[in-house]
């Protein structure tokens, strides 16, 4: 029971901050609304449905990469991390607490688009697979970010790294547009972005667009990225007893 309270304690800290800095959430909500109107205007229901599913993946990836990564990076710089190490909290509890603390962003960036997607005709049966993809995106996003963020010595650079990294990984490669749009020779190149197999998996699960990547290949690639980022993270994410 006390392990649960420890996770909630870390989350509560984050949650209270977001409650006071609600404009970040408002920005995301306005962005989602504007984005939906824009896509509907230019692409109709089909365009919106396609992009809203992609936005769930990009949103979850962004929460992991930008928010969880930055949060842990800043806590390391501000010695909150060191403070937590010398306490009964474990590394897993700490990570889960930080992730849980981003619940308000999850509601805006993942759950709200999920409701829109269901209203637009995405089948309920697709939800379990979509949930798995979204969770993988969160995990992979945070791991990728942390492998870089925790190597940064200058605290001013944390957001200067994670924000462009998000733009690079979520808007440039085929996330909001299907891989089939790319010319054949460019498609393998797109796979250097971990977001691409995740988005393709989401498209496959919801049937929103044709995918040229087999689900098994997309899953294998995601597993590869997850393993790689976990190995890279092990070198920098230490819970005390640093050498």
């Amino acid at each position, binding site marked *: 029971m006390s392990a649960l309270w420890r996770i909630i304690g870390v989350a509560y*800290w984050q949650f209270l901050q977001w409650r006071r800095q609600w404009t970040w959430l408002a920005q995301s909500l306005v962005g989602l609304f504007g984005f939906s109107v824009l896509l509907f205007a230019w692409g109709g229901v089909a365009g919106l449905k396609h992009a809203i599913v992609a936005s769930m993946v990009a949103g979850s990836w962004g929460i992991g990469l930008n928010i969880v990564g930055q949060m842990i990076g800043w806590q390391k710089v501000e010695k909150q991390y060191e403070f937590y190490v010398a306490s009964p909290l474990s590394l897993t509890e700490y990570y889960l607490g930080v992730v849980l603390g981003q619940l308000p962003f999850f509601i805006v960036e993942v759950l709200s688009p999920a409701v829109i997607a269901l209203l637009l005709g995405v089948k309920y049966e697709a939800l379990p697979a979509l949930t798995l993809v979204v969770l993988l995106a969160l995990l992979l996003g945070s791991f990728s970010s942390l492998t870089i963020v925790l190597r940064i010595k200058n605290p001013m650079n944390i957001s200067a790294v994670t924000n462009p990294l998000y733009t690079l990984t979520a808007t440039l490669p085929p996330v909001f547009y299907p891989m089939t749009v790319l010319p054949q020779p460019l498609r393998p190149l797109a796979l250097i972005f971990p977001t691409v197999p995740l988005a393709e998996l989401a498209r496959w699960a919801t049937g929103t667009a044709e995918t040229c990547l087999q689900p098994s290949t997309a899953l294998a690639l995601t597993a590869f990225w997850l393993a790689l980022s976990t190995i890279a993270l092990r070198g920098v994410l230490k819970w005390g007893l640093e050498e």
Partner: protein
Amino acid sequence: MAVVVADKLVKKFKDVKALRGLSFTAEKGKLVVVAGPNGAGKTTSIRILTTNLKPDSGKAEVLGFDVTMDYREVRRRIFYVPQDYAPFIDLTPIEYAVSTLMSRGFSYSEAKRRAREWLDLVGLAQVNRTMRQLSGGQIRRVIVATALASEAEALFLDEPTSGIDVEARREVWRALRERVRGGTCILMTTHDMGEAEAIADKVVVVDKGLALYEGSPRDLVSKVPFTHRAVVRKSPALKLDHAVDLGDRLIVYFRSRQEFDSFVGSLEDPSLLLSASSVGLEDAFILLLGGGVA
């Protein structure tokens, strides 16, 4: 009973030897101050004792548990406030204390009860502004109150009163002494010898990664070969044996009251004498480190 045992701790960062065999103990129900100049190894030793750092060699125990082998047991029983730790966050004092206590395993209601009780003691239970809007002194008081509310058996505070005004510092001291009276062991670092003299049961003077002295502040002062000191304006007319140069002023040391009285009586211009007092821990500290006294 020794709550903290540091035994021949060695820690090297690249080419810099931060600790060269540091040993000391801290006992239950005692407030132990680790003092020393910048780079002496104070923070490194505290980071080892709080399981943040691994020593290269030597042994460290907290409450009978080895800090590298039984680190989980150690972490369950301690509370650590790092140096310069000041969470500039949008949380009120009560929210900060409650979330911190919850992150240590207390339920919400228990955390709230404890937070109220201890914040009340430092006069901040009713403050409804966020930590970002509080003064440095208020932030420190919130952090210390939270540490005290945690009921940890050993507290490690790395310069808990740095940068706060005299009045706030005394409130922190009062809260710390209150906790020590209840049987908690507190290990803290400071640069301020006045602070160590006021609140420490024991002082460990550290320099270049080694403990130069371990004992009561009074015993350390008694080792000083002087009894009195005076601050005087520098003047060519003054002939002094033991003095520390402060630019246009001097700190002058005297071996006895008689020596001091005869010095004052010999002053042609009494306005040269700016202040006088008995020697204290700061003087002992400077002498121990081997600096300053001619």
